[in-house]
C-alpha cells in the first residue's frame, strides 16, 4: 500500500510541475500576444487573445456537454450483452 501511495504522490508531484510549466508557457504566450502582431483567417480571430479565450471556454463547454451526454446516453457496461 505504501508503494502505491508513494507512486500516487509522485504522479501528483508530476502533475503539479506540469501545471506550473503550462501556466508559465501560457503567461509567455499572453505577453507575446502584445509583442507580435497576430492576425487570424477571419476578422473575429484578430481580437486580442481570441484563440486562448475561445479554446478555454470551448473545452469547458465540451466537458459540460459530455456530462450532459452521460445523462442521456450512458448505459451499464453490459448493456448489449444480451445480443
Amino acid at each position, binding site marked *: 500500500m505504501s508503494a502505491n501511495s508513494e507512486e500516487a504522490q509522485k504522479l501528483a508531484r508530476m502533475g503539479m510541475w506540469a501545471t506550473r510549466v503550462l501556466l508559465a508557457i*501560457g503567461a509567455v*504566450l499572453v505577453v507575446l500576444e502584445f509583442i507580435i502582431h497576430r492576425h487570424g483567417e*477571419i476578422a473575429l480571430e484578430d481580437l486580442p487573445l481570441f*484563440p486562448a479565450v475561445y*479554446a478555454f471556454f*470551448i473545452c*469547458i463547454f465540451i466537458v459540460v*456537454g459530455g456530462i450532459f451526454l452521460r445523462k442521456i446516453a450512458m448505459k451499464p457496461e453490459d448493456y448489449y*450483452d444480451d445480443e
Partner: protein
Amino acid sequence: MMSDLLTMLPPGALMMLVAAGLVLVPHHARQLVMLLAIAGSAFSLTAGAGQHLTIELLGFEMMLYRADHLSLPFAIVFHIAAALNVFYGWHERRATDHVAGLAYAGAAIAALHAGDLITLFIWWEATAITSVFLILASGTQRARHAAMRYLIVQVASGVLLLAGAAMLYSESGSLAFAGMTLGSAATWLIFIAFGIKAAFPLLNGWLQDAYPEATVVGTVVLSAFTTKLAIYALARGFAGTELLIVIGCLMTAFPVFFAVIENDMRRVLAYSLNNQLGFMVVAIGIGTELAINGAVAHAFAHIIYKGLLFMSMGAVLYRVGTVKASELGGLYKSMPLTMVFCIVGAMSISAFPLFSGFAAKSLIMSALGYKGLVAAYLVLLAASAGVLHHSGIKIPYFAFFGHDGGHKVKEAPFGMLVAMAGASVLCIGIGSFPGLFYQILPYSIDYNPYDASHVLGQMELLIFSILAFTFLMRFGFYPPELKSTVLNTDWLYRRVAVWLGRPVLWAIMAVWTSFTCAVAGYRDAIWQAIERLVHSPLTGPTVPGRAVMVQTLVLVVILAIGYLVAA
C-alpha cells in the same frame, strides 16, 4: 522484364496475390515476403500518371489501373501504412492478421486506382470482405457479433454503390469514375455509399462499434484504409459539393462529446478518427485547390498519426490486457518508449507546430478563411480544441499518468516499437519540413504554415485548452472515467430497428404460417391429383417422383409469369 510486368499490374494487386499464399510461409519469412509484396506494389506506382491497364469484360471497359495527381498521395501513404503495419504485427504468430491485413491493404490500394465505378465496386467490397477477418480474429462472441454488423454495413455500402453505378450508366451511358453532381437518384446512391464508409453523421455507428473489437494489430490496420478510401472517393467524385461542408462540421463536432466520456481508449480513438474525417469532408466540400490539398494532406498525415495512436493503445492492450481508462494509469514507468511515441501521436493530431497535424490542418483552416465561411471556421476551431482535449490529453494522460493503475508490465515488443518509431519520425518529419510534404499534393501551392502570427495563435489555442483541462481536473469538475457503454448511432440498428422490426417480422411470419397451413389443408387433394398424373398410362413407368413433378410445375409457372411480364 520483371519491372515492366510490375508497372502493368494495378498497385495492390500483387499484395492480394501474395496474401493468398501467405499462410504457407513460415513466420519470419512471411513478414519479409509481405514487405517485398508491398515494395513490389509500390514499384507499380513508378508507371506514373495515366491509364495503364484496361480490360474488356462482358462488353464493358474496366479500367483497372488509372493513376493521377489525386490517387498518388493516397497510394503513397497506403503503402507506408501497410509496411509499418507489418512491423507492428511481427510478434503475432497467427497468420490471420497478416493475411487479412495484406489483402485488405492491397484491395484498398487497388480501389484507389479504379478508373470506373464497377472496378471501384469490386475493390470496395473486397476491402469489406478482407478486413472483417481482422475483427473476427479476436475470437470472442462480442467480436463475432460486431464483425457481422460491420460486414452488413460495409457490404450494404457496396450494394448502394453498384445500384448507383447501374443507374448512372443507364442515364449517361458512362461508368467512368469522375466528378459528379448531386441531383439524380444515381448520384445520391453513390454519395450515400461513400458516406457510409466515410462515417457521415448517423451512418457512423459501424466505426466505433467494430474497430475497438478487432485484434491488437487489426485495429491499427483497420484505422488506415477504409475511411480514407472513402475520403479519396469523395474528393474525386464530389469535390465542391457544398452539402459536405455541413456534413463535415457535424462530423467534427459531435464525436468530441462522445470521446470525452468514452471509457474504452480504442473507442475514444475511433470517435476522434470520425472527428478528423470531418475536417477532410469540410475541405472536400469547399473544393478549391487549396482545400483539396488540405483534405489530401490531412488524410496523409492522419493515417500516420492516427495509426501511431492506435499502435500505442494496442501495445498497452497487448501488455496490460485492457484499454479501459478506468483501469489504466501510471504506465509511464513500465512503457516509457510507448509513452513517448503516444505523445508524438498526440501532439501530431492536436496540430502542435513542428508536428504533422499542423502542416496539414493549416491548409484546411486557411481555405475556410479565404472562402469567408466564418461559422464553419469557428466549428472547426472548436473541434481542434476538442481533438486536443480527447486525443491529445485524454489518451496519454489516462494511460500513462493519471491515477496509478498498479500495472507492472514489460515495454512493447520490438516490432511494435519499430513501427511506432517509424510513424513518429514521419509525424515530426512532415511537420518540420512541410515544403517537401506539400510537393506530393495534387496541386502545386505556395503556402507557408510557419509565420509567427499563425504559430502564436495555434499555441494559444493549444496551451489554453490544456489549461482548461488542468483547471477542470484540479477542481474536480472533470467527469471521472466510468465503466459504461455510451450509446452511439449503432443503437438505431441494434435496438430501435429490433423493437420496430420484430412486430413486422411477426406479422409476416403469421401470414406465411397461415398460408402454409392452408396449403397443407389442401395437400391431400393436390397429392392425389399428382398421383393420378404420375400413374396415368400417358406418362409411363419412367416418370420421376412427385417432388420433381411439383418442382417442374413451379418452374413452369415462374417461366409463364416471366414471359408475361417480359411481354
